[in-house]
C-alpha cells in the first residue's frame, strides 16, 4: 500500500463503508415507520404510535451519524479525486447538488418536526412529517445511486476534446437504466436491514419476556415486509442487475463468478477459492450450466471467461470482488430462507412461541449489514479498473498534489474517529432498546392470544 492511489482508494472505501451502515437502516426504517404511522391512523390504536416513537429514537441516532459521516463523502470527490471531479463534475455534480437541494433540506426540516412535534402537528400532520422524511431519504438514495450508476454506465454526456465530460442530457443522466435497476436492488437491501433490525428487537423482547405486545408488532411488521423484500431482492432486481453487468461489464461478470475460462454451459460456483496466478478455482463446488442459464436463459449459452479479455481490462482485485459477490448472494439466499420460514410460522400463528426461530432472527441482525456492504463492494470493485466505465481509469482520477503521506494522515484520523463513533453508536442503541418503548398501559396483562395481536 505504498502508492498514493491505493491510499486514496482505501480512504474512500473506508469512509463510505462506515457511512453506509447508517443510511441503510434509516432508509429501511423510514418506510417501516410510515407503515406504523399508517396503522396508527387506520386502527386508531395508540399502540402503533408508541411503537413509532420508539423507532423514531433509534432512527434519530442513526440519522445523526449518517449526517456527520455523510458530509465527508461529498467533499472527498474534490479533496482526493480532483482529476475525476475536474473532468466529470459538470455531470455528477448535478445529482450531488440535487441531493442537497431536494433531499437534505426536506429531511432535515421534517425530521425535527417528526421527532419533536407530534403533539403540535396532530395525527395527520405527524403522518405527513414522517412521510416527508421517508420521501427525502429515498430521494437522496436515488440521487446517490444515479451518481454511481453514471460511473458504472455513463449516459447523457458529451466528451470534449480536453478530456472534460459535459452534460448533454439531463434526463439521460437521471433516468439511466442502470440507475433504475440498481436503485430497486439497493433500496430492497435497505428495507431488509430495517426489517431484520425491527424483527430482531421484537425477538429480543419476546425472548427476554418483556414488551410482549411491542415485540409481536415488531416481529409481524419486520417479517411480513422482510419476506417480500428478500424475494424481490433476488427476482427480479438481482437478476436484472446481473444481466446488466453481463451486457455492459462482461469482464466483471467473469471475475465475480470466478470464471477464468470461456465456455458453453458455464457452471455457477457456490464455493471455492480463486487462484488468479494459475487462472483457476481451487476446491470448486459448482452447479453445472447454471450460469449460462441464469444469464441467457439457455443451458448451453456461451459465457466469456476472463481469458476472453486482455488483462488490463480485468478488475484489479479479483479475489475480493469474487468473495464480495458470493457473500452477497449467499446471504441473500439465507435471508429468503430465514424470512420465509418466519413468515410461514407467523401465518400459522406459531412465530411468537417458536423460541428457536426468535433466536435465529435476533442473531441474524449483523447479516443484512454485511450483505449490503458486500453488494456495494461488488459494484465498486467490479467497476475497476475504471473510475467511469470506459471513460476514465481509476488511476487517472486522483488528486495530483495530495501525496500518500497526507492521505494516510487523514485516513488514520478517520479510522480513529469512526472507531469511537461505532462504540458510542452500539452503546446508545443498546440503551434505547433496554429502555424500550412506552409500555401499553391500556392492556391489563401480557396474556393476549397471538391471534388477537394480529
Amino acid at each position, binding site marked *: 500500500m505504498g502508492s498514493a492511489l491505493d491510499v486514496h482508494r482505501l480512504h474512500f472505501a473506508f469512509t463510505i463503508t462506515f457511512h453506509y451502515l447508517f443510511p441503510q437502516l434509516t432508509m429501511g426504517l423510514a418506510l417501516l415507520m410510515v407503515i406504523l404511522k399508517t396503522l396508527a391512523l387506520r386502527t386508531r390504536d395508540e399502540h402503533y404510535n408508541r411503537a413509532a416513537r420508539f423507532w423514531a429514537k433509534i432512527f434519530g441516532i442513526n440519522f445523526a451519524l449518517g449526517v456527520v459521516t455523510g*458530509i465527508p463523502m461529498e467533499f472527498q470527490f474534490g479533496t482526493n479525486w480532483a482529476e475525476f*471531479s475536474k473532468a466529470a463534475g459538470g455531470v455528477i455534480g448535478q445529482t450531488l447538488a440535487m441531493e442537497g437541494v431536494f433531499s437534505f433540506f426536506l429531511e432535515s426540516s421534517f425530521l425535527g418536526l417528526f421527532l419533536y412535534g407530534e403533539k403540535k402537528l396532530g395525527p395527520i400532520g405527524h403522518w405527513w412529517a414522517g412521510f416527508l422524511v421517508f420521501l427525502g431519504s429515498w430521494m437522496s438514495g436515488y440521487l446517490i445511486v444515479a451518481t454511481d450508476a453514471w460511473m458504472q454506465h455513463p449516459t447523457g454526456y458529451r466528451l470534449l476534446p480536453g478530456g472534460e465530460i459535459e452534460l448533454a442530457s439531463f434526463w439521460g443522466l437521471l433516468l439511466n437504466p442502470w440507475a433504475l435497476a440498481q436503485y430497486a436492488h439497493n433500496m430492497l437491501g435497505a428495507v431488509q436491514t430495517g426489517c431484520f433490525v425491527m424483527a430482531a428487537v421484537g425477538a429480543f423482547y419476546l425472548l427476554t419476556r418483556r414488551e410482549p405486545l411491542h415485540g409481536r408488532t415488531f416481529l409481524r411488521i419486520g417479517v411480513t415486509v422482510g419476506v417480500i423484500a428478500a424475494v424481490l431482492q433476488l427476482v427480479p432486481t438481482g437478476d436484472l442487475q446481473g444481466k446488466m453487468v453481463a451486457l455492459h461489464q462482461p469482464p466483471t461478470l467473469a471475475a465475480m463468478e470466478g470464471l477464468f475460462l470461456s465456455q458453453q454451459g458455464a457452471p455457477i460456483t457456490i464455493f471455492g477459492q480463486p487462484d488468479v496466478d494459475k487462472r483457476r478455482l481451487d476446491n470448486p463446488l459448482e452447479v453445472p450450466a447454471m450460469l449460462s442459464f441464469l444469464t441467457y436463459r439457455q443451458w448451453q449459452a456461451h459465457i466469456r471467461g476472463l481469458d476472453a479479455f486482455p488483462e488490463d481490462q480485468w478488475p484489479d482485485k479479483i479475489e475480493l470482488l469474487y468473495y464480495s459477490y458470493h457473500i452477497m448472494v449467499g446471504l441473500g439466499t439465507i435471508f429468503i430462507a430465514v424470512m420465509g420460514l418466519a413468515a410461514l410460522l407467523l401465518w400459522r400463528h406459531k412465530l411468537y412461541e417458536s423460541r428457536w426461530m426468535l433466536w435465529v432472527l435476533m442473531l441474524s441482525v449483523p447479516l443484512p449489514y454485511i450483505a449490503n456492504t458486500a453488494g456495494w463492494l461488488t459494484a465498486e470493485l467490479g467497476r475497476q479498473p475504471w473510475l467511469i466505465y470506459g471513460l476514465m481509469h481509476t488511476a487517472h482520477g486522483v488528486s495530483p498534489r495530495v501525496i500518500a503521506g497526507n492521505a494516510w494522515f487523514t485516513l488514520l484520523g478517520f479510522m480513529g474517529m469512526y472507531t469511537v463513533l461505532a462504540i458510542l453508536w452500539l452503546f446508545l442503541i443498546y440503551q434505547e432498546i433496554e429502555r424500550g418503548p412506552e409500555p401499553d398501559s391500556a392492556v391489563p396483562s401480557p396474556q393476549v392470544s397471538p391471534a388477537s395481536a394480529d
Partner: protein
Amino acid sequence: MGTVWFCLVAVMVAMYVLLDGLDLGAGAIHFLVAKTEEERRQVIASIGPVWDGNEVWLLAAGGTLYFAFPMLYASGFSGFYLPLMMVLWLLILRGTSIEFRNHVDSRVWIPFWDFVFSVSSLLLAVFFGAALGNVVRGVPLDGTGYFFEPLWTNFRLSEHTGILDWYTILVGVTALAALMMHGALWIRLKTSGELAERAAKVASLAWWAILVLTALLTMITFAVQPQVAANFKTWPLGYILPAIAVAGLAGVQFELRRRGELNAFLASATYLLGMLTSVVFGVYPMVLPARNPVNSLTVASAQAGAYGLKIGLIWWVIGMTLATIYLVHVYRSFAGKVSTEKNGHSYAD
C-alpha cells in the same frame, strides 16, 4: 451564465454563514454565557431543531459549486486538503456532541459533550475565517490549475504561502468575533433571565472587537488583494456593500442599547451579509485568486458546460423555493423562547 452561478453560489455560502453562524457562535460562547447545567441545556435547545438544517446549506452550496465550477471544486478542495479534512473532523465532533449530549443523564457524559461542542464550534469559526482569508489573499496555484498548501510555512505573505499566515489568522479571529456576536445575539433572542443578559454582555464586548478588527482588516485587504481596489474603482456602486456591513454593525449597537432582540440579531446578519458580499464583489471575476495573478481561476475558466448550467438553473430555482418554504416553516414552528422547565422543552429528550 457563469456569473449568475457565481452569484448563486455566493448566496448559498452567505446563507450558510448567516444560519450555521448562529449555532457555531452559540457553541463558541457556550461556557462564557451558560454557567449552570440548566443554562447549557437551554443553549443547546436554542439551536437543536435548526443546526442540522443550517448545515445543509454547506452541503448544498458545496454540491452547487461542484457542478457549476468543477475545476474550482477540484483545485480548491485538493489544494486545501489538510484544513478541509480537519473541518470535516470538527463538523463530525460537533454534530455528534449536539445529538448525543442529552442521551445519557450523567455528570461525566453531559459536560464532556458540552466541551466538545464548544471547542469544535470555536475552531470551526476560526477555520472558516482562515479559509476565506486564503481565498482573498490568493493561493499558490501554478499553470496546471492545481496547488497544495501546507498548514503553515513562515507565516508571511510570500510566494509559498501556508493555510495559516498572519493575514489569514487575522481573518480567522475576526470571523470568530463576528460569529460570537451573532451567536450571542441568537441566544439573547431565544432565552431569558441571566443567560440572556450574559449573552448581551458578550455581544457588546465582541462588538468592539469587531469594530476594530473590521477597520484594520479592510485596510490590510486593499493592500493584500489589489483586485479589490480595482473592482471598487471600476464599479463605484459596489461601495453599497461595505456600507451595508457598516449599517448592520451600527444597527447591532443601536439595538443592543434599546434592547431590541430580533432586530439586533437581524442587524448582525446584515453585517455578515455586507462583509461577505463585499469580499465576493472584491475578488470577482476570480473564483480562486492565485499568488501569481496569471494563474488565477476565473468564472470563465472554471465553469461547467452551458447546457448543464442552464438546466441546473431550472431545478435550482424550484429546489430553493421549496427549501425556503421549509426554512420559514421550521423557524416559525420553533419560534419563541426556549422553555426553562426541564421536561417542558420542545427539543432534546
